[in-house]
């Protein structure tokens, strides 16, 4: 996992509520066994059907911050949705809210999800259409700075923040509790009625 620190970029607007994982990357593109290559089909349908979709506009080339509405990433648990966003170069998504599984998946792939108040997001969605709307997101200070100089604090889980800033993943943390895990499983054995052996 890559370290996440300060991201400065023009913001690409996607003023749509409840953007689902099938819209982010349709199931037809999930047959790979790698984490790579999904960026090419990010938002495939919208790119194919709307010449003015921001990803089709040259002036949004290089944007690494996506701004969208509420409940972004709802639907499937496919981590491919996150890989499609990071594969297309996105490092931050700013929204009014996110779906749960998508939120968890993002944190494990150095994709920073930022929740800001609805009024701020609405303002950003309107202003960002011009493609010269440069936004700075700083995880360390948990702030988003807009072109008008205004700075907005966002909440972020401190444990996750530590992991994002230092490129740590969960496996080693969990494995550091190996003794606790072993003790738990021994204790749990008396109530274990399930084994998949022989299936």
């Amino acid at each position: 996992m890559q370290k996440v620190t300060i991201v400065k970029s023009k913001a690409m607007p996607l003023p749509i509520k409840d953007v689902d994982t099938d819209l982010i990357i349709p199931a037809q593109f999930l047959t790979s066994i790698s984490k790579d290559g999904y960026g090419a089909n990010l938002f495939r349908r919208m790119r194919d059907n709307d010449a003015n979709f921001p990803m089709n506009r040259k002036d949004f080339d290089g944007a690494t911050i996506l701004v969208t509405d509420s409940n972004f990433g709802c639907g499937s648990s496919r981590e491919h949705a996150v890989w499609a966003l990071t594969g297309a170069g996105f490092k931050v998504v700013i929204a009014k809210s996110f779906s749960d599984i998508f939120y968890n998946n993002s944190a494990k792939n150095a994709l920073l999800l930022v929740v800001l108040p609805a009024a701020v997001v609405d303002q950003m969605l309107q202003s960002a259409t011009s493609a010269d709307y440069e936004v700075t997101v700083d995880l360390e200070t948990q702030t988003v700075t807009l072109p008008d100089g205004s700075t907005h604090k966002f909440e972020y889980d401190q444990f996750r923040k530590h992991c994002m800033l230092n490129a740590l993943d969960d496996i080693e943390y969990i494995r550091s509790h190996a003794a606790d895990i072993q003790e738990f499983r021994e204790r749990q054995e008396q109530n274990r009625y399930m084994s998949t052996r022989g299936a």
Partner: protein
Amino acid sequence: MSVAATKKSKSGSAPGRAASNVQAKPGSAGCQPASAKIARNIVEKIWDAHVVKQLEGHPCVFAIDLMLLHEVTSAQAFQLIESRNIHVFDPSRLLATIDHSTPTRQNRWEIYDEAARTQVETLRSNCKKHNIPFLDFDSGKQGIVHVVGPELGVTQPGMTIVCGDSHTSTHGAFGALAFGVGTSEVAHVMATGCLLQKKPQTMRVEFKGHFRKGVYAKDAILKLIGEIGVGGANGHVIEYVGEAVRAMSMEERMTVCNMSIECGARAGLIAPDETTFKYLKGRSHAPSADKWDAAIDYWSSFASDEKSTFDKSVTIDLDKLEPIVTWGTNPAQNVGLSEPIPKLETLEANERAVAVRALEYTKLKAEQTLEGTPVEWAFVGSCTNGRIEDLRIVANVLKGKKVSENVTMYVVPGSEAVMKKCHEEGLVDIFRAAGADFRMPGCSMCLAMNDDQVPPGKRCISSSNRNFVGRQGPDSITHLASPATVAASAIAGCIASPAEFL
């Protein structure tokens, strides 16, 4: 239809009426196991029983009892643990099958799409290498991952179950805490048997009253999703309660829990009871006779205490519920068959924008009713409604009738075991006599990862779980409904109520 919400609804009593937006229960974000004296709901009990380690300010190290694997979301997880030279923690807590990208034609061993073939072969070889039980084609056990787990009896009350699939919530029907995870978390469970988790909030959904003729569990869950919206249960685990839930079969309970994710819930579950135990008894991986009584004692402890509380509460009255069909591009955009699609002016501004876009895609108009809308495709199957009981209902509707000549109907059993029963019970003859295409088991047209796709511009009435844009194939239009409504519509050639066919 009343939706009530309370700040702290009690488990045993009906929730009072309040605003439909809900406030959080204070102090619910913590992770400490509650003492035995404090009344706990079922979610809290399962949670407490699986906390391995909780450090201040950190997420819980949370034990997972069973992880199900399929071909689409596992390959990268195997790569990750192998790249770090980590062994699979406990293969007897893992179970794999192939379902998403597999063909449903007779000869399934030959997968034409190279990437899909590689995906299936990769899972097959990974399971062999890591000693993970793998349910292959023609094993008699292969099927949709959320159909086969319960069939084998590995899905049991009080367990924690994950899978790289959002419809893992299906297993909640047995009183298990079951939820979808991404591929990174699949790797975490492979490596450690644990996940880092934050304690979820809880929501109580009561289904009151009784189903009318032609109305089913699918209609009840679609109604809930329509009432609270696609994000209405974000961050929450739902417990479904009420007389209607107690009267439901396990298949119906699975349909309800399955679609919990469609209102954003982390999971949905139902406390185990006699219906649960009866379903499990005698299954190949259910506890043996000598352990059965002890298992029942343990499982029965997973019930919400009478005075336990929930962060949110909703009540849905089933007495007047009619068959529900979706009109838009998310499962919350639904109406009863006699109701019109909402007037745009009655919707909130941002909901209106979503509705306008959805109606443009589904080629429908606000304020029209759905009954009579011509359909070209009908799909029965999926982890939502591909079980034997669903197919019996469909056969009952189709018996002695013909699918409209304008409609192509796919009936895809959820598993090889369901398929076998369909043959034994004579259902296959009914499907074929009616002109439906009875196919081999898998996810099929629910997400159209294989060749089973609704052609562009065509309209499909479907027993599946998502009507997202392009879900059943690029530019396809989906109407979600119960299996009975799908069958009735297939005969009529247009969206139709099942009541007259029963």
